[in-house]
C-alpha cells in the first residue's frame, strides 16, 4: 500500500503543489492529471524517491520510502520520458542490463520473448539507435513483461505508440491490476480501464 501525506514540491522558486495526499491500494490505478509544467513528472519522480519532497512524506507499507529504500525500490519500476536505453546496445542487451540492475536477472530468451510480445520480431538484436521512436518506446515497455515489481510508475506511457500497442499496453495494465499490482501514470489520452479501480489526482 503506497501512501502520500501532504506532499509539497518547489521547482526553481515556484511552488508546484502543496498539501497533496492520497493512498493507493493493491489493484488500483492512480491517474495524475494536470497541464504541462504543473509538476506531474516532479510528483512521479518524488514518488520514486528521486526528488526529495519539500514537505510531507511518502510511505510504503507504512514506512517512509527513504528509510526502506532498498525494499521499496525492489518493488518499483519507473519509466520516465527518457527510454533509459543505451543506443549502442541491442534491445536484448538493454533489457537484460536493466533487469539485472533491478535485481531480477533474466535469460537471453526471456528477453527475446518479451520483445516479441511487444511486436518487435526481428528487431531484437539491432542496436537500439537504429529503431524508430515508437519501437524504442516498446523496447522500454517490454520491461513491464519481465518485471515482477508490484508498483509501476509510468510517465506518459502511451506517447508515440500506435493503436495496436496502446491496446496491448492497456491489456497489460489491466492484467497487472487484477494480479494485485499498482500503477501510477500520467497521460493526456483517456484511459478506459474499468473506472472502479481508478483514482484521480489533479495538479495545477
Amino acid at each position, binding site marked *: 500500500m503506497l501512501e502520500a501525506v501532504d506532499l509539497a514540491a*518547489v*521547482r*526553481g*522558486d*515556484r*511552488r508546484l503543489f502543496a498539501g497533496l495526499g492520497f493512498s493507493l491500494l493493491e489493484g488500483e490505478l492512480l491517474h495524475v492529471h494536470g497541464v504541462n509544467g504543473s509538476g506531474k513528472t516532479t510528483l512521479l519522480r518524488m514518488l520514486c524517491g528521486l526528488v*526529495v519532497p519539500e514537505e510531507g512524506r511518502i510511505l510504503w507499507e507504512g514506512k517512509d520510502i527513504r528509510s526502506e529504500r532498498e525494499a521499496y525500490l525492489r518493488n518499483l519500476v519507473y519509466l520516465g520520458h527518457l527510454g533509459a536505453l543505451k543506443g549502442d546496445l541491442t534491445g536484448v542487451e538493454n533489457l537484460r542490463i536493466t533487469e539485472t540492475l533491478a535485481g531480477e536477472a533474466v535469460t537471453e530468451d526471456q528477453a527475446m520473448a518479451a520483445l516479441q510480445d511487444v511486436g518487435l520480431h526481428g528487431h531484437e538484436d539491432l542496436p537500439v539507435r537504429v529503431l524508430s521512436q515508437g519501437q524504442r518506446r516498446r523496447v522500454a515497455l517490454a520491461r513491464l513483461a519481465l518485471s515482477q515489481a508490484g508498483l509501476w510508475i509510468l510517465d506518459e506511457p502511451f506517447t508515440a505508440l500506435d493503436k495496436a500497442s496502446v491496446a496491448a499496453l492497456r491489456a497489460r495494465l489491466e492484467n497487472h491490476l487484477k494480479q494485485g499490482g499498482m500503477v501510477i501514470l500520467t497521460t493526456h489520452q483517456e484511459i478506459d480501464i474499468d473506472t472502479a479501480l481508478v483514482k484521480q489526482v489533479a495538479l495545477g
Partner: protein
Amino acid sequence: MAFAGINWFKYSSPATFYPLAGKMMPWFAGLAAVLTVIGLYMSFFVAPTDYKQGEAYRIMFIHVPAAWMSMFIYVVMAVYAAMGLIFNTRLSAMMASSLAPTGALFTFLALWTGALWGKPMWGTWWVWDARLTTELILLFLYIGFMSLEAAIDDPRRATRASGLLAIVGVVNVPIIYFSVEWWNTLHQGASISLDKAPSMATIMLASMLVMTLAFWMYTIAMVLYRVRCEILERERHSEWVVALMEERK
C-alpha cells in the same frame, strides 16, 4: 561563529530569522568598527618597532588574522553546508553561500598582504612557502564554490551541490596543507615560513588578536547582511515577504 549555528537552530525558519538578523547586524558592525580602531591603534603605535624588520612586520597584523579568518570561514561554511544537507534546512544552506564571498575576500587579502610582506623580507613578491601556497589553493576552492553555485539555475540544487563541494573541500584542506608542506621541505629546505615571525612580544600578539576579533565581528555583520538579501531573494514568493514589501512602500 560556529556556536551561533546551534542556537540559531530554533530560529531556523527564514521568516523568523530575517528580523532577528536585522536587529543584530548593527551591533556586530559597530563592534567591528570599534575593534578595528583599537587594533589599528595598537598595531601602529603600541607595538614596538621590530629590531630586524623595522616597520615592515606591521603587515603581519592584518596578514595573519586574514589567513586565520580565511581558513576559519571555510570550515564554518562546510559546517553550515553539512547542516543544510542533513537537516534540509534552507537557512543553513543560505548561511553557507553568504559566507563564501567574505571568505574569498579574506583569502585574497591574506595572499596580497603576504606578497607585500614577502617583498621586503625576502625580496620576492611570491614565495612557494607551504602556508602561502595552501592559501592560494584555498582561494581556488572558494572560487570553485561560488562558480558552481552561480552556474546552477535551480537555487535548491545550487546550494545543495555547492554544499557538498564545501564538505569535500574541507576534508581535503588538511591533506593539501600536508602535501604542500612535504613538497616544500623536500625542494627548498625549511625556508623562513611566515609563522616563525620574530618572537612575539605579548603586545604584538594582543594587537593581532584584537584585529582577528575585529575581522570576526566584521564577518558576522557582513554575513548577516548578505543572508538577509539571500532570504529576500529566495522567499520572494512567500506571503511574509510580500507583506514586508507592503509596509516598506
